[in-house]
């Protein structure tokens, strides 16, 4: 799915340069669940943004499905994101004025899906996260866990190849956290997704197939996780 070679991302802050990612090489196989750990400010989110084409590396190659995202035009990267990459954010990032169903529908708009088909797929996505009875609720009328479920439905409604989750349980209480991670794990298994999950929570990371640790912009792979989720059947 992904092959990163010699990737660097350097931010310029006035005269100072801040290397967020340094000389990163990484291969992520199809259907793999990779957890990326690390302390705050060590480049986890930057890595995720590079994987999702939300930002461009300063140097290096970010190959996704055979295409170097760093070399594509912005419109092309946007098309790749629309069709193949789903995002889940720590703060849910739902549009506050749209209902749960409309938030999920927003992910299908760039694909030009006809309205009737959109409704059907939105409904199916909400059913898969157990929120079909909350379709018309606004985000302000949903709990944190429910909002994150809506975000997961939004990420999955377009049947992406990869799901990128940035601290998906960071804003949730323990019980809800387990609920959400359990849901993600189930969907990963059932749908055969490639899942890259950024977290600073070790207990969460241990559930993944493989764990990498970001430390001052460098990625060290901790290897396979024998005590984790186990291989997909």
């Amino acid at each position, binding site marked *: 799915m992904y092959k990163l070679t010699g990737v660097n991302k350097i931010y310029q802050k006035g005269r100072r340069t801040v290397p967020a990612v340094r000389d990163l090489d990484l291969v992520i196989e199809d259907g793999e669940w990779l957890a990326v750990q690390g302390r705050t400010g060590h480049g986890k989110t*930057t890595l995720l*943004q590079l994987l*999702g084409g*939300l*930002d*461009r590396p300063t140097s290096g190659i970010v190959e996704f499905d055979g295409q170097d995202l760093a070399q594509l035009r*912005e*419109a092309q990267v*946007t*098309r790749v*994101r*629309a*069709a193949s990459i789903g*995002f889940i*954010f720590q703060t849910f*990032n739902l*549009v*506050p*004025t*749209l209902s749960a169903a*409309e938030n999920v*529908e*927003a*992910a299908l*708009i*760039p*694909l030009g899906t006809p*309205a009737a088909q959109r409704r059907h797929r939105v409904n199916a996505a909400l059913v898969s996260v157990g929120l079909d009875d909350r379709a018309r609720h606004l985000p302000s009328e949903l709990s944190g866990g429910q909002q994150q479920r809506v975000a997961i439905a*939004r990420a999955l409604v*377009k049947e992406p190849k990869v799901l990128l989750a940035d601290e998906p349980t960071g804003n949730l209480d323990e019980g809800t956290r387990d609920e959400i991670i359990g849901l993600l794990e189930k969907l990963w298994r059932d749908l055969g997704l490639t899942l890259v999950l950024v977290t600073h929570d070790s207990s969460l990371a241990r559930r993944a197939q493989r764990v990498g640790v970001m430390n001052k912009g460098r990625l060290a792979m901790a290897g396979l996780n024998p005590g984790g989720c186990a291989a997909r059947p």
Partner: protein
Amino acid sequence: MFFVTYLRRELRRRMRQAVFIALGLAVGIGLVVVVTAASSGVKKAQADVLSSLYGVGTDVTVTGATPKPPKSGAAPKNAQTFQVGPGGAQFCSNGKCHNAAGQTIDNLGSPTSPISQSKVAAVARLHGVTAAAGGLTLNDTQIKLPKNFGQPGGSLPQPKSFSVDGVDIGHSSLGPLSSATVKSGHSFTAADATSNVAVVDSGYATANSLKVGSAVTIDKVKFTVIGIVGQPQSGSPPDIYIPLARAQAIGTGPDGKLKNKVNTIYVTAASAADIPAVQKEISKVLPGATVTTASSLASQVTGSLSSTAKLANELGKWLSVLVLIAAFAVAGLLTMAAVSRRAREFGTLKALGWRSRRIVAQVLGESVAMSVIGGLVGVGLGLAGAALITRIAPKLSANVPTAGGGPRLATNGPGGSQSFSPNATHTVLVPMHASVTAEVLALAVVLAVAGGLLAGALGSWRIGRLRPAAALARVE
């Protein structure tokens, strides 16, 4: 439909800001509508005043030169004079004098020097001239002298006067009668060219209890009223119209009778672009005559009509432009602020695969929706403002210059010479109608949409260029 749903929800979310922006634009657009309506109303009033003076279709007017005032102690040649002395008062006309006491003196005079009627044809042949017609603008002045006139204690009474227009019946589309509408009876026909018939202005007819069939006396000649006409309300038309040939027969000018003479030529140019050249050519054919166009006459009109026109065109125009610019600026700044607050939301949409232009279209749509609402309210405010102006605005006064001075009546007596002359200008009261036209409404819509597009473009310009990662990093 998603676009509309998102737009509607977002406007509802920031209702207060949306109302503020819409109201700001409404005030700006309303002001533009009111000022434009008032300005066009004033322009129409000015045009009515001018057209009533010389009639519809007249582009250039030629009048004879104003005769020089008489030297003190000397009566002008052919003038009618009163001589007051120890033997009583005498009235002298054309060199003959007689006792004036108890007499009614009636004079139909031309205030300007006459022009040969052959010059009318010469003007008509000029390049750029479509038609030319001659006329006589005369004043009939009557003084009823008391029986003790000329004796100690007796003074010259105030004369009564009315205006008489000698009309070229063969060119009825030119001249003051061309803009009149017949209220009763009929206007002149070709058969009336040498008849003692008159058409009377409705205002004069009402004031003097005249109707079709009544008799009016002009310079001691009886004319039968065949029609009553009305002129545009703003005009100051002649009181009585008679055939040109009859006016030439009974009127007098500074140099005597007016046979084959006119004192005004009405000219129609082929186009507005030809008017300056025609004006120049006529001045060559008739040096010494006064050649005026509608625009040069407009500059001589004074009074509150003129002041209001300046106010509407200059102050009003700039005020409405400034208010509109301020409204656009506020709308733009508020939209930019609102978009900036939604940076993370737009970053998320970009992460979902929304292209920048779709996001820009969303912002533009929200902005245009607010502006269209503001525009509609603005049109409503403008219509209400225009209606209010029409309802409560006082009539505007227009001091319109008349051609030359008054009748040639002078006295020579112990007190020196005196002369009678009606005012060189007369005041016309013009109602103010602020009219909103379809063009003004279209302008309002265009301004509203333009305001919305400008505000939306300002607001969305930066967000469209922002990388998704940078947008997502923004804190709301």
